[in-house]
């Protein structure tokens, strides 16, 4: 029986995109803030919103949505959901601060205080890692659900979250070709702009190349691990690989969500970004994002359709 609907899928997806965007943004900022300025900024602009939309979906998936505030008056260290609710609350706060920190105008009057800015980034890094891990841990700690009860779910959803965050950044960069501050598509001012585009593209495609390869490995190890597990886990695997979720899984996630973006990234790296094709970025980012939603949907549904066989 399905207890957690598509709204929970969307919630996990939104949390993944936000955490991923924030992680990528802070990482790019750490590597080279001047070179990857656009990625840093776009990531900061994206981070607060998908997770907030996800939280609204989560609240409406509750049977008693008007009591959701009880989540934020209790802390229970044994409950991943309680820990997660707190991590997400703090994440939302820090992502808004980080968002404002990256605006043109210095509303917070913090930009000159390097220590404070670094502290915000450090806390943001920790919290976004926490959010990205939480979506997997929420599922993997339930022993009653053999399809979820594997540590690979955590790794898979974490890697997928970073890819989704990066894809969201790449997508927004494609959608705003005329923005002088966050564009990689339509160069306006000569050689310098082309250099910026190339740098950002190299970052996006290198990270994509590595992480999509990793995601493919995670998926394979996840499936093999489930396939060599208990009877009920094997029956869950059947639903995913050859049953009613198989078309979504193989075509929606593996082919469209991982393999095609991986080939696109490999192609871009192989040609050394010599030709700039915004539509390629756009399609590959869109496919990666849909793949990220589909894999969460498949995992959530397959886990609920099967249960540990006790006797």
């Amino acid at each position, binding site marked *: 029986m399905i207890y957690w609907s598509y709204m929970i899928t969307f919630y996990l997806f939104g949390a993944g995109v936000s955490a991923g965007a924030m992680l990528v943004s802070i990482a790019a900022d750490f590597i080279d803030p001047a070179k990857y300025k656009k990625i840093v900024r776009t990531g900061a602009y994206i981070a607060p919103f998908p997770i907030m939309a996800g939280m609204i979906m989560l609240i409406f998936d509750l*049977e008693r949505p008007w*009591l959701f505030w*009880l*989540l934020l008056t209790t802390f229970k260290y044994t*409950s991943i959901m*309680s820990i997660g609710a707190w991590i997400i609350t703090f994440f939302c706060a820090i992502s808004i601060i980080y968002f404002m920190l990256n605006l043109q105008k210095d509303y917070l009057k913090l930009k000159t205080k390097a220590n404070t800015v670094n502290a915000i980034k450090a806390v943001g890094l920790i919290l976004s890692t926490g959010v990205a891990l939480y979506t997997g841990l929420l599922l993997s700690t339930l022993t009653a659900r053999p399809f979820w009860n594997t540590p690979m779910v955590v790794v898979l959803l974490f890697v997928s979250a970073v890819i989704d965050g990066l894809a969201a950044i790449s997508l927004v960069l494609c959608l705003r070709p005329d923005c002088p501050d966050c564009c990689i598509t339509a160069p306006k001012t000569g050689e310098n702009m082309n250099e910026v585009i190339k740098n950002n593209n190299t970052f996006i495609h290198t990270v994509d190349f590595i992480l999509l390869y990793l995601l493919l490995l995670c998926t394979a190890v996840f499936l093999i691990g489930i396939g060599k597990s208990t009877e009920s886990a094997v029956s869950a695997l059947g639903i995913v690989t050859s049953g009613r979720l198989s078309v979504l899984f193989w075509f929606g996630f593996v082919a469209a969500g991982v393999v095609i973006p991986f080939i696109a990234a490999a192609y871009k790296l192989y040609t050394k970004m010599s030709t700039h094709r915004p539509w390629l970025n756009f399609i590959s980012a869109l496919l990666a994002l849909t793949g990220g939603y589909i894999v969460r949907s498949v995992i959530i549904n397959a886990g609920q359709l099967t*249960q*540990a066989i006790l*006797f």
Partner: protein
Amino acid sequence: MSAPESLGKLPKWAMLIDTTKCVGCLACVAACHNQNELPVTEYFNRVEEQEFGRFPNYNRRFLPMQCQHCDNPPCVSVCPTGASYKRSDGIVAIDTRRCIGCKYCILSCPYKARMINKEHGYVHKCSFCAVLLENKTLPACVGTCPTGVRVFGDLNDPNSEISKLAASKKTVQIGKDLNTKSSIYYIIG
């Protein structure tokens, strides 16, 4: 019938279900519905029918299932608001006023013992008829069983029937490898 007296300390309620005596009459299910005033689509206990063996050595058993009142209950540890809790007498209970209906506990329960109340939205389940226990009366399913499948009692009382039966080699706890430490012991035929 009356519930066994505890020996000056808190009881630790437990149940034994002898499936070899179960005839599948579902009187326990009806009694439970009646006692807890449940809607038709919701139930706290059920009787699973299982078939096993290979023809001609073939058999069938009835397996009454309900909340196992685990000593390491996954539903209690996952509950984010503390609505699900373990009472000191061993009963896993729900404070329905604190339940937000996130359904995490339902997904965490390997026994499928939890139900959503369609009318109010909270999660509810078997409470070992805690209301009846306060009046020294046995739970409805135990009192109503015509073939004596169910034995109910206090594990803290070493002289009780349940203590002696639970210690015997015949009994098993279902889902033991999931580390739930359930309070319902089964004799499987």
